[in-house]
């Protein structure tokens, strides 16, 4: 159930992001593939000019990505609460604690921090993640 809720959360990203005009404008120069891993399950976010074209679920074979954000399911569950607790409220709080890892070419992340932070946090707007 919880795993399914997490899957629904990340698979909702196209709807959440593409309906947000301010977020789309912020990401207008972003076109890349981002790897996100929820526990052992990899996802690939295909982004074109800030628009989430699709979210694909792995496993992937020899699939490239620009950078990857990985974390355990428990950490993502906390991160996506509508009001996350301290140390779980920001991707860099989670990397500092070791609960998340971010790897790859970090240039597009750092050059578009507000965009990627808001994309990754967008599922907080869904009530289903916070349901027990």
């Amino acid at each position, binding site marked *: 159930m919880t795993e399914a809720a997490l899957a629904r959360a990340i698979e909702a990203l196209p709807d959440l992001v593409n309906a947000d005009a301010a977020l789309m404008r912020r990401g207008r120069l972003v076109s890349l593939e981002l790897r996100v891993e929820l526990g052992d399950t990899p996802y690939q976010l295909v982004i074109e000019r800030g628009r989430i074209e699709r979210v694909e679920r792995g496993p992937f074979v020899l699939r490239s990505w620009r950078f990857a954000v990985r974390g355990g399911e428990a950490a993502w569950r906390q991160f996506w609460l509508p009001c996350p607790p301290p140390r779980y409220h920001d991707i860099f709080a989670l990397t500092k604690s070791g609960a998340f890892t971010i790897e790859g070419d970090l240039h597009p992340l*750092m050059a578009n921090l*507000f965009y990627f932070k808001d994309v990754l946090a967008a599922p907080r707007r869904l009530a289903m993640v916070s349901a027990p």
Partner: protein
Amino acid sequence: MTGRIDPIVGRYVHVALGGRAHRLYFEEAGQGIPLVCLHTAGADGRQFHHLMRDAAVTDHFRVLAFDLPWHGKSSPPEGWQRDEYRLTASGYAEAIRGFCGALGLDRPAVMGCSIGGRIVLYLAIHHAAEFRALVGLEAAACQQPWYDMDWLDRQDIDGSGVCAGLVSGLIAPQSPDAARWETLWHYMQGGPGVFKGDLHFYRVDGDLRADVGRIDTGVCPLFLLTGEYDFSCTPEDTAAAAAQIPGAEVTVMRELGHFPMSENPAQFRRYILPVLERIRALTPRAGSGP
């Protein structure tokens, strides 16, 4: 005149720092005990505007905030174009003491946040007798880094976005949007390399772990307040410093992060007003005016 005007007044004071002439921009409001406020790295004194507009504070305190050189409305010194800006512990203390001396402040209280909180500990170690109380917000003797500083100043990344984007996560999720984004705007307005230059003090030149044990709170009381959402200077970091300082008072502030005075002023005043009351009680006859 029908416009609503804030009680904040801004002026410049001329101070020589490191042998070079500076015009330091400062703002102030209120009267009574001088309270000098020190902004965070890469920001400026506007972070304290809410305190300066709070009559519960300004009825008893002359609240002053100056912009460090290179920050806000304080320009870099002449010849800056050839320099790489790097804040040092001694240079930072010189700026604070130079500002207080130039204005003739009588044993001011000093409240600093982040790098301002770190330098408050330095002042407590080296210059405690000059101050009547010291308040460190998000202060610790040392903290663990959580990103590579080289991202902050490079030609192929917009500095305003990366500086503000990094610190955005240090704001508590409960902080209201208007205050959150005004706090971030201040970061977006920092000059190139200035935030990084401030962090030289934070990460390279300002490790005070070997010295905080020398702080004598009998000479100058020390109050330390840290937001629970601050993962840069965590409550545990503050507690580690306080454990070496007999008499230091530590408060963990709920639903606040790294910028308590500007990210959520209403929540912050719940914590800071009792501290200011304590400072007034230390100096019962000092509140009668400048």
